[in-house]
């Protein structure tokens, strides 16, 4: 086994430490600023993991995953703000309706496969993005998005002082999503998913319907994404069209590919690092160090997408396992030397 | 004078070592038949010569090395190929199939020869090749190899899966071509081999096990041991 024998106990300790951090006197995580950053990062880690279930474990290259993330977010904020449902029922309803949406879109898209599937899911997701950002029907408030009405949700979700609750909820979401994904990928359905990724014909020969299992994977990933969307609504305080754009799906792809598509922890680390880095890279690009360099070089370097894009191309072409793949290759070498 | 000379050819596909040091020569202006049971590496040998599989060893055409060259360069050097499953372009018309293959459009004499050899293709020139019968498709595949002046023809099981009447037609066509060109023929149909081949090579498990005269094909016991089929005098 390539797993390091202390990895699981250490992970447990790390999670407990993270949960306790806001209480442990004066440390970086006792400040709301970093709590907020990390809450967002944990959610992207979880979202990347749901995408990995789809792409890395089932082999479905969907470009529409952001749609379900955004639908959970928008449905929840609309139900809550318009007093349709009490907040916790609104959360359940948002996830349930997003799941129904996923069943419909998944069934339609899975009539195609491979690269066509990517194109079709992209078209659906962009359609959703357009509907949200153009304010069709007057619900979504266009580019400005919809702020969550603070009076309609419990006060522990509101205010800088309560950021630690959001931090905990996000961390808990990540842990729960991780365990659900772990449970699914290790279950018999998960083995079918992996078999579909590797050789679809073999699955069909065994008498299992490939499309049904693909839809299952698609819907589970979408349902989890919509829940993460609801939590993101709490953390960021509003629903905005940028959460529905193809940029989110492309960011998920970057996270999963850079982290390594065939491991769960690779996707999570990819998501967390990407999320933290994209906020930090923005600050870094404003530093004065770049001023001495001519604009023809400093211009692109000040755009985070430049570095990320190049890194992404490099990984796809030369290091398909990403970060976790490289780690396992290294461990394999260490073990075989012993 | 040998046209094609293959020395110590090795082909590995994934983990399996399919050709294990194949060495043989194809003499000029004659027909050499490559024989052997199914799966011993005959088709692989042809494909490796064309560079369709990566290989190790040396392949020379008239003394010029072909090893490591790209497939289209090898074909341009003067090797024509009629693949096992015909591999005609189904969505193209018969005329387009032949036009595609033609490297020198001003060689009218050659086009005339092909037209005389396969009159049926002339009358069907506007038909999509995918809608032709198996025998007609085989004729397109052979005609496609003949439209250019080549040093050697590699032909892989041209009579496979054809009705007996069509086998005769294809065999007649090959018989007429045989007089004018060098040919390396993979074929299971022994009567056809006896009729047109001057040399035979027998392969087994990725190696050459016999090279010599087709006389041996008249010895039933020899055929049975070497090729695993009943044959000889009938």
């Amino acid at each position: 086994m390539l797993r390091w024998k202390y990895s699981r106990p250490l992970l447990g300790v790390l999670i407990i430490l993270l949960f306790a951090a806001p209480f442990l006197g004066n440390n970086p995580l006792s400040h709301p600023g970093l709590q907020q950053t990390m809450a967002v990062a944990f959610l992207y880690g979880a979202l990347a993991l749901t995408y990995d279930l789809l792409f890395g474990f089932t082999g479905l290259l969907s470009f529409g995953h952001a749609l379900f993330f955004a639908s959970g977010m928008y449905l929840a904020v609309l139900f809550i703000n318009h007093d349709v449902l009490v907040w916790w029922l609104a959360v359940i309803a948002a996830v349930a309706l997003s799941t129904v949406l996923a069943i419909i879109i998944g069934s339609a898209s899975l009539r195609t496969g491979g690269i066509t599937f990517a194109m079709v899911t992209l078209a659906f997701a962009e359609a959703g993005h357009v509907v949200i950002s153009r304010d069709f029907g007057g619900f979504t408030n266009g580019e400005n998005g919809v702020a969550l009405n603070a009076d309609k949700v419990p006060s522990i979700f509101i205010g800088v002082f309560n950021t630690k609750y959001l931090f905990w909820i996000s961390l808990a979401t990540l842990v729960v999503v991780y365990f659900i994904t772990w449970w699914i990928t290790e279950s018999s359905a998960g083995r079918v998913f992996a078999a579909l990724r590797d050789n679809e014909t073999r699955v069909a020969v065994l008498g299992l319907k490939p499309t049904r299992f693909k839809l299952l994977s698609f819907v589970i990933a979408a349902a989890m994404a919509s829940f993460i969307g609801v939590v993101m609504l709490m953390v960021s305080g509003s629903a905005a069209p940028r959460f529905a754009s193809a940029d989110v799906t492309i960011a998920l792809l970057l996270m999963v590919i850079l982290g390594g598509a065939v491991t769960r922890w690779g996707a999570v680390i990819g998501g967390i690092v990407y999320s933290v880095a994209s906020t930090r890279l923005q600050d870094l690009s404003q530093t004065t160090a770049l001023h001495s360099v001519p604009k023809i070089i400093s211009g692109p370097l000040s755009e985070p997408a430049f570095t990320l894009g190049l890194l992404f191309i490099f990984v796809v072409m030369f290091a398909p396992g990403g970060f976790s793949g490289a780690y396992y290759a290294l461990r394999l070498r260490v073990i075989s030397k012993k | 004078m040998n046209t094609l000379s293959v020395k110590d050819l090795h082909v590995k596909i994934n983990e399996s070592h399919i050709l294990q040091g194949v060495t043989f020569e194809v003499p000029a202006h004659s027909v050499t038949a490559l024989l052997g049971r199914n799966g011993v590496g005959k088709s692989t040998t042809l494909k490796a010569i064309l560079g369709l599989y990566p290989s190790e060893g040396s392949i020379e055409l008239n003394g010029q090395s072909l090893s490591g060259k790209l497939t289209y360069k090898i074909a341009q050097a003067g090797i024509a190929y009629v693949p096992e499953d015909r591999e005609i372009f189904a969505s193209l018309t018969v005329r387009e199939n032949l036009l595609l293959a033609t490297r020198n459009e001003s060689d009218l004499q050659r086009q005339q020869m092909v037209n005389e050899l396969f009159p049926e293709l002339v009358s069907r020139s506007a038909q999509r090749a995918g809608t032709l019968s198996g025998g007609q498709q085989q004729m397109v595949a052979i005609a496609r190899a003949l439209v250019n002046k080549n040093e050697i023809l590699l032909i892989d099981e041209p009579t496979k899966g054809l009705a007996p009447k069509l086998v005769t037609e294809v065999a007649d066509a090959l018989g007429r071509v045989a007089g004018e060109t060098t040919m390396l023929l993979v074929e299971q149909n022994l009567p056809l081999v006896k009729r047109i081949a001057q040399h035979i090579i027998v392969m087994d498990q990725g190696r050459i096990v016999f090279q010599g005269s087709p006389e041996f094909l008249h010895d039933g016991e020899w055929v049975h041991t070497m090729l695993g089929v009943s044959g000889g005098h009938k």
Partner: protein
Amino acid sequence: MDTFMLIGITGIGLGALYFLVASGLSLIYGLMGVLNFAHGSFLTVGAFVGLWFSTQVVHVSNTWTFIAAMIVGGLASGLFALIVERVVITRLYERHIDQALVTVGISLVVGAVLAGWFGNDLRLLPTPPWFINTVSIGSAHIPVDRFLYIAVALILLIANTALLRYSRIGLVIRAGVENRQMVAALGINVRLAFSAVFFLGGFAAGIGGVLVSAYSNGVSPLIAGTYLIYGFIVVVIGGMGSVPGSFLAAMVIGVIKQYANYYSPGLGDFVVVFLLAGVLLLRPQGLLGKVKP
């Protein structure tokens, strides 16, 4: 009736722009199986080079300089597409998912480079004076630039069909789609033909980029965004790989979108989504697409 006419023709004009984006996508996908997310960058590169030509090389703006800008933009974009194909795509031979992923990376890098150099603000693209004129059909006043888009789209459709059907390279491409190895075994450098496909796709996108910039009054690294998405939708509805299908779908979408938007602003996008879903459910191969065996 006049409004009906006006909206119909502007719809066809919009459809023509969608087609210019979709034709390259469809060509590259249909012939090579590459889902090209870098197509938006082809569009933007063409637009910026067209802008450079119109402002730095020529200093007047008339019909001929605009046509020249279109061609220069198209050539630049075609060349860029060729480089992308040679340097990146061919190294991922037959790995279609990785090819799609790597084009995502390229589009990120190109977007970042252009944004870093020029910023994301819209830069005015000079157009000939007659661009703002209108033509009267009955009593409907139709902006004359729409006819230019339609004409360019038609020319590209015809040129593309003729090239594939009647030229030697078209023959090689059609055969290569069916069986790449056999084309090589006939002594033909099939890779050259596929590079040509990328060049042509890029060329169409570059022309599209200049025209889209003219339509949206300027050039920026962000102009490709919605057009690329509509390009994808057009390709799916028209049938993957069918350029005539893309043309038909682009026209239908352009017209339906304009009528729906006239009826209620914002409705257009919604209707197009329903159309997409309907086509996928009833005819997953698209309007003129072939069913894969």
